[in-house]
C-alpha cells in the first residue's frame, strides 16, 4: 500500500488547460484514480482467489466428512461410506475438486451443505440479515460512544477521568468475549427480568449510583474545585431525582416519555447541539433548533395516528421530511451561515423524531411483557425473535430490540475500548499540531478550536480503521452469535465445522473475505478523500 498511496509533496495538480474542454480535463483528473482502483481490484481478486485455494485445501485436509460413518455401528456402513464418497467426490484429489468448486462458483453455484441438502446461497441469504442487524447497531453505538469517551478523555488528559478511562479500556480489551456474554446472559437477562417483577430500586444501590454519577460528571466538567463540587452536587441531585421517579412510579413496568418528556428532552438536545456546533451565543441557530423542537412537539399527537400504519418506509419518509423542514426553517432565519443553521436544526429535528419513535415503542412495552410468549420476562437470552409472537410494527421492533440488547452490549464492550484508545491518541496528536496553536492565536474560542479544527482532523485516522473493523466483525461475531444462539453467519460456520461440511464454510469465507478486501480498498479511498496531502495514483 505504501507504494501505491503517495503523499503529494511537490507534484501539484496540473493547472487546467484552457484549450481542453472541461470534459476531458475531468477525465484526466479521474483517470489515475480509476487505474488505481482497477489495479487494486485486480490484485485483491487474485489475493482472495489464492486465499480460497488455501482454505479449500486446508478444509479438505482437516475435515473428514466420513468421520461419523467410520465409527458408526450401522450394518450398511460400507455402503454409506461409499455413497457419501461418491456424493462428495472424495476420490478426486482436492486440487481438482477446488477447480470444480471454482467453476461452479463462477456460474453462481456456491455448493450445497451435504447434510441438510440446503444450498449455500440460501443459507447465506438466511444468515446474513441476522448478522448485519446485530453488527450494524453495535458498530454504530460502539463508534459513537468510543469516540465520545476518547475525545473527552483526551481533552482531560492526565486527570482522574482520563486514567480511569484508560484503565477501563485495558480491562475491556482483556475480557474474553464468551465470558462477558455468559455473564450478561445471567445478570443482564435473568437478573433484570427478576428485578422487573418488583421494580423498586433499593436505597443502597441508589446511593452508589448517585455517587458514581456525581464523580463522573464532576471529573468530566473539571475546572476549579468550586465548579467540581457544584457539578458533583447538581448531577447527584439529578440522578437521585431520576432514580426516585423511576422507582416510585414503576416507570419500568409501563415506560413512556409523553409529550412533556419529548419537549423537555428535545430542548436539552437543541441546547447541546447548538452549544457544540455554533455556540449558544449564536441566537439564530439556537432559535432555529428550538423551532424544530416546537414543531416536533406539536406533531406529537398527529403522529400517533400516522404511527398506526407504522413501517420503515414511513420512518424514512419522516426522516426526509425532517431534513426538508430543517432547511426551510434555517432559510427563514437566514443569516450568513444558513448551512450551519440547517445542520443544527436537522440534527435537533432527528433527535426529537427519535424521541417520539422511542416513546411509541415504549407504549407497547406493557402489552408486550404481558403477552403469553413473554410472560413478564422481556429481556431475551437466545435467538433473534420470539417465536409465535404476533403484533404490529411496533411490537416487532420492541421484540427485535429486546433480543438484540444483550448481544449488542457484548459486542460494544469489546470494540468500544479500541475506539476510545484510538480517538484519544488521535486527538492528542492533533492538539499538538501547529495549526491548533494558530487557531488559538487567532483568538478563536476553545469550542471552535476543538470541534472545527481538532475533532475533524482527529477523525481521519479513525475513518481508516472503521471499514476494516466492520468487515472483520462479520467474521468475528462467531462467539457472540454462538452464546446468544443468533442464527447468523457465525452460527452457520460453527454448525458446518461441527458437521465437517466444507461447502458452507467456503461460502462463509467468501463473504467475509470479500468484505475485508472491499473494506481495505475503501480505506485507501477514504483516506485520500479526507486527507488532501494524500492522493491515490498508479
Amino acid at each position: 500500500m505504501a507504494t501505491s498511496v503517495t503523499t503529494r509533496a511537490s507534484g501539484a495538480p496540473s493547472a487546467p488547460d484552457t484549450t481542453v474542454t472541461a470534459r476531458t480535463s475531468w477525465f484526466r483528473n479521474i483517470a489515475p484514480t480509476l487505474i488505481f482502483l482497477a489495479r487494486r481490484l485486480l490484485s485483491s481478486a487474485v489475493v482472495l482467489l489464492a486465499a480460497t485455494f488455501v482454505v479449500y485445501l486446508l478444509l479438505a485436509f482437516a475435515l473428514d466428512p466420513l468421520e461419523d460413518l467410520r465409527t458408526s455401528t450401522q450394518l450398511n456402513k460400507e455402503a454409506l461410506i461409499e455413497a457419501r464418497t461418491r456424493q462428495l467426490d472424495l476420490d478426486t484429489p482436492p486440487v481438482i475438486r477446488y477447480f470444480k468448486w471454482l467453476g461452479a462458483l463462477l456460474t453462481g453455484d456456491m455448493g450445497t451443505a451435504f447434510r441438510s441438502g440446503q444450498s449455500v446461497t440460501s443459507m447465506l441469504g438466511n444468515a446474513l440479515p441476522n448478522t448485519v442487524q446485530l453488527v450494524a447497531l453495535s458498530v454504530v453505538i460502539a463508534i459513537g460512544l468510543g469516540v465520545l469517551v476518547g475525545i473527552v478523555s483526551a481533552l482531560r488528559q492526565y486527570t482522574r477521568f482520563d486514567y480511569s478511562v484508560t484503565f477501563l479500556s485495558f480491562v475491556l480489551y482483556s475480557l474474553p468475549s464468551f465470558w462477558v456474554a455468559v455473564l450478561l446472559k445471567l445478570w443482564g437477562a435473568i437478573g433484570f427480568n427478576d428485578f422487573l417483577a418488583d421494580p423498586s430500586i433499593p436505597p443502597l444501590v441508589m446511593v452508589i449510583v448517585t455517587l458514581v454519577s456525581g464523580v463522573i460528571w464532576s471529573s468530566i466538567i473539571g475546572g476549579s474545585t468550586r465548579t467540581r463540587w457544584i457539578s458533583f452536587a447538581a448531577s447527584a441531585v439529578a440522578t437521585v431525582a431520576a432514580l426516585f421517579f423511576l422507582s416510585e412510579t414503576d416507570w419500568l413496568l409501563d415506560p413512556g416519555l409523553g409529550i412533556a418528556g419529548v419537549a423537555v428532552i428535545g430542548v436539552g438536545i437543541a441546547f447541546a447541539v447548538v452549544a457544540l456546533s455554533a455556540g449558544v451565543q449564536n441566537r439564530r441557530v439556537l432559535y432555529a433548533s428550538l423551532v424544530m423542537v416546537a414543531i416536533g412537539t406539536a406533531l406529537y399527537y398527529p403522529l400517533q395516528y400516522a404511527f398506526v400504519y407504522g413501517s420503515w418506509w414511513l420512518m424514512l419518509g419522516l426522516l426526509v421530511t425532517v431534513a426538508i423542514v430543517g432547511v426551510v426553517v434555517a432559510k427563514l432565519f437566514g443569516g450568513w451561515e444558513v448551512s450551519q443553521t440547517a445542520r443544527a436544526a436537522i440534527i435537533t429535528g432527528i433527535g426529537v423524531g427519535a424521541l417520539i419513535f422511542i416513546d411509541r415503542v415504549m407504549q407497547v412495552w406493557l402489552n408486550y411483557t404481558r403477552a403469553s410468549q413473554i410472560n413478564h420476562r422481556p429481556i431475551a437470552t437466545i435467538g433473534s425473535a420470539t417465536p409465535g409472537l404476533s403484533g404490529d410494527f411496533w411490537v416487532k421492533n420492541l421484540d427485535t430490540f429486546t433480543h438484540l440488547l444483550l448481544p449488542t452490549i457484548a459486542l460494544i464492550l469489546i470494540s468500544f475500548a479500541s475506539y476510545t484508545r484510538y480517538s484519544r491518541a488521535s486527538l492528542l496528536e492533533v492538539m499538538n499540531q501547529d495549526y491548533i496553536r494558530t487557531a488559538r492565536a487567532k483568538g478563536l474560542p476553545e469550542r471552535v478550536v476543538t470541534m472545527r479544527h481538532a475533532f475533524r482532523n482527529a477523525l481521519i485516522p479513525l475513518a481508516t480503521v472503521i471499514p476494516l473493523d466492520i468487515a472483520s466483525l462479520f467474521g468475528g461475531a462467531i462467539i457472540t452469535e454462538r452464546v446468544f444462539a443468533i442464527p447468523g453467519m457465525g452460527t452457520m460456520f460453527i454448525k458446518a465445522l461441527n458437521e465437517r461440511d466444507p461447502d458452507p464454510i467456503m461460502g462463509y469465507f467468501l463473504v467475509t473475505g470479500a468484505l475485508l478486501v472491499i473494506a481495505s480498498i475503501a480505506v485507501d479511498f477514504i483516506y485520500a478523500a479526507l486527507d488532501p496531502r494524500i492522493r491515490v495514483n498508479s
Partner: protein
Amino acid sequence: MSINPPIEPTGGAGAPVDPAESVENAIELKEVEGLSQGRIVLRRFLRHRGAMISSVVLVLIILLVTTSIGWGPIPGWWTYGYRDLDTIVNAGGAPTMGFKDGGFVFGQHPFGQDNIGHDGFAMVMRGTQQSLTVMFVIGLLSTVIGVIIGALAGYFRGWLDGLLMRLTDMFITIPVIMVGSILGVLVGGASPWSLAIALSLVSWMNMARLVRGQFLALREREFVDAARVAGASDFRIMFKHMLPNAVGVIIVNATLLMASAILLETALSYLGFGINSPEVSLGQLINEYQTAFATRPWLFWWPGLFIVIIALCVNFIGDGLRDAFDPRQRRIPTARALAKADRRKQRAEQRAAAKA
C-alpha cells in the same frame, strides 16, 4: 529509536527552537545523561507503575501455577491433581476458602469442586499452565516468522517484497478465528503445543507488516551504507545492524500479540475447537461449566478471572514497553529524579577528579 540530539537550552544562533521544548529536552537529557539506550528504556519501564505492578502479578501467577500442581519436572505442593477425585467437602462442592471462626482459611478445596469431586484449584492451575504455554509459544513463534518475513521483504524490496506482501495480504483475508477453528479440528486439540504451533502460522501478519515498514526506513540510513561498504553480508546487515534498531517495535508488538493469543486460545477452547477434554484449558473449563453457572458459579468465575488477569497484565506490560521505547515520550522527571541525576553527575565528576 535514537534519542533526540542534545539541544542547548540557550539555542544556537537564530535556530528556530521552541524554547519550552528545548527546556523540556534539557531537563530530560539531564536525567538520562550518560546512560545507554537500553538503560534509558529500562528506567522508563520501571517508572511505569501499571506495567511494574502487572509484571509482578504475572510473575506471581507463573510461580503459582508452576509450583502448585507441578509442571513437568517441577514437583508440586498441592495435594490434588487436576484429574483426581475427592469426596465432596462442602454442599454442592462450594469453595472452602473464606472467613471461618474469625480467621481466613483456605481449606481443602479453595476454588471449590465440580459435581463429581474434581478439585477446582488444580483444574484452574492446569488450565492456566496450558493457556500460558499456548500464549508464550504463539508469541515467540509468530514473532520469529513475522520478523523474518518482514525483514526479507523490507530489506530486499522488489519482487520478493511484492510476493511476501501479497502472501501477507492473503493471510490477513482469512479471519483468524475461522482458520484457528479449522486448524484446531486438524491438530485435534489434546496438546497445547500443536495448537500453539498451528495458531502461530496464522498470526504473524501484523508483525511482518510492522517489521517491513521499519526495515524500509532503516535501510536508507547511513549506518547501513557504512556496513555495506565495510563488506558486511546481507544477512549480517539485516540481523546485526538493522534488527537491533527495530527491536522496540518488535517487543511491543510481540507483547500485544501474546495478549490476543491467550484470548484466541481460550475462545477456541470455548468453542470446542481448541484444547479438549480430558485435557483442560481455561476456555475449555468455562465451556464445560457454563451450564452449571447457576448452581456452581465458582467453576465459572475462577477460570475467567485468571484469563482476565493474565490478559490485563500482558496488555499493561505492552503499554509500559511502548511508552518506554517511544522516543517521543516526554515526561518531565520529578524533582527527586533530577536530584538523583545531579548526584550521579557529581559522583562521576569526583571520580574523574580523583583519577586525575
